[in-house]
């Protein structure tokens, strides 16, 4: 064990892990996070809080993570390179470790252009791969990025994201390899709707033996409406929503669509469980977190292991 992370323990013990994503509020209201955390309690091995997702100003990931921690959950702080340079990022790494957080997910971050402050200056001093390496060196080499020693190192379980549906497809596995070599312990993937294409990617991952070097947690998300599915298909960069999914949603009466969306999500999880190299699922029920317990139970992933 590299850290005190619950997620690391669950994965190392060979359980099929479950994590979920929590969207922080666009306000200072802690109750929003408390409500969502209460819902998830007992159903997940760890929970992510997004860090200014789509470049919209929201409560900081680490702060919302601390609130969720009150409910016995293991937080995964998301950290993007969009808003902070290497100085600020390393300060935050020390800070979250000192506050008892055990997991960090390293991301490059959505461009300011997509958000509610499109005139902001994006920082991008470093990229996600470099951030992974910095956290790894801080933890294992006890060194800052400039090479200076750290007397008391941050012990964090290091996560990264990868998108099997982005281009160039053939390079995606090699980029995963790069992230592993940089120091990633676990990977959370982009939301999967196109399971055959994901399987093709996983096959390449396994061919290179990468599934033995990193824990791959597959991203899933329940669709609430046909409109949401179409929006994801056309508007979100790097998403792949096959027409079959949309047809399946269109095939049920309108008031049944959310239920069908949840069923599709459970079906995908069940398929993913059988894919070689998949170590767990990450449920991204964005602003629909209340469905997570239902999904976890329906996919026979409840109760979660306790240590």
């Amino acid at each position, binding site marked *: 064990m590299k850290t005190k992370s619950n997620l690391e323990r669950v994965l190392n013990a060979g359980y099929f892990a479950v994590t979920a994503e929590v969207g922080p509020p666009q306000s200072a209201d802690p109750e929003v996070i408390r409500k969502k955390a209460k819902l998830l309690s007992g159903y997940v091995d760890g929970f992510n809080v997004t860090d200014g997702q789509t470049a919209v100003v929201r409560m900081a990931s680490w702060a919302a993570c601390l609130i969720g921690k009150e409910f016995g959950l293991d937080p995964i702080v998301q950290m993007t*390179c*969009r808003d902070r340079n*290497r100085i600020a990022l390393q300060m935050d790494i020390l800070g979250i470790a000192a506050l008892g957080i055990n997991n960090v997910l390293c991301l*490059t*971050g*959505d*461009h300011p*252009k*997509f958000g509610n402050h499109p005139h902001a200056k*994006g920082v*991008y*001093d*470093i*990229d*996600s*791969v*470099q951030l992974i*390496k*910095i956290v790894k060196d801080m933890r294992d080499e006890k060194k800052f*990025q400039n090479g200076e020693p750290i007397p008391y190192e941050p012990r964090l379980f290091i996560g990264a*994201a*990868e*998108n099997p*549906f*982005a*281009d*160039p497809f053939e*390079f995606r596995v*090699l*980029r995963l*390899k*790069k992230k592993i*070599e*940089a120091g990633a312990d676990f990977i959370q993937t*982009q939301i999967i709707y196109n399971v055959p294409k994901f399987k093709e990617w996983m096959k390449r991952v396994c061919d290179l033996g990468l599934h033995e070097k990193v824990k791959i947690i597959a991203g899933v998300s329940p669709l609430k409406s046909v409109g949401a599915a179409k929006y994801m298909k056309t508007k979100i*960069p*790097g998403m792949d929503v096959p027409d079959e999914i949309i047809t399946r949603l269109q095939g049920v009466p309108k008031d049944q669509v959310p239920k069908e969306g949840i069923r599709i999500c459970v079906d995908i999880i069940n398929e993913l469980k059988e894919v070689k190299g998949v170590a767990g699922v990450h449920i991204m029920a964005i602003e629909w977190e209340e469905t997570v317990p239902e999904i976890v139970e329906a996919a026979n992933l409840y109760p979660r292991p306790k240590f």
Partner: protein
Amino acid sequence: MLISKQKPLEEIMEYIEGEKKVFLVGCKGCAEGWESGGEREILEMKKKLEEKGKIVTGHVVVDMLCDKALSAIKLKNFKKKIDEADSLIVFTDGAGVQVVAELVKKMVHPGCNTISSGGAHAEWKGAERCMECGNCVLEYTGGLCPIARCSKHILNGPCGGSQYGKCEVDETIPCVWHLIYERLKEIGRLDKMEMFVAPKDWSLSLIAGPPVKRF
């Protein structure tokens, strides 16, 4: 070549609020090329300002405003008209505005915004660009620049939003990392892209470092 574009008239009017008389300066170099401060634009601006009730005491369009010695002689010829004015408005890039500000002891308003050339220093149209970052990375990228052409200046790209060869931030521009991949694949050097590229020394670039000392 610097690219400039006239500021909106309302913004210029705000600058000269409370002033009655102005003197206009243009340039026959880049500003004429970009139609932001050549002879024609200066005359048009004169008309617009007069319609708004301002008095234009005079105007001059200098051959190369960034040539300080030449501009000093030119402006001297207009000394009387400049003295009469409350302020000057300069219609060209930031370099030209600063030349006039050094030569005249009077308020000098910028009439244009200087637009980023995106590193396109050559006057010929083309995709080749250089941001003068001081720490060249073209060795790792098959000779295509991710500093000038990736929206996130990523050194270990492409990011997760690259799809169909387009940049996630603007689908009208190609994802340079996709192009880098294709180029390296073509020349059999994908190993360059599989390599970890360490954090960059940004201190040598104008983006992060102190102003470059050239003189």
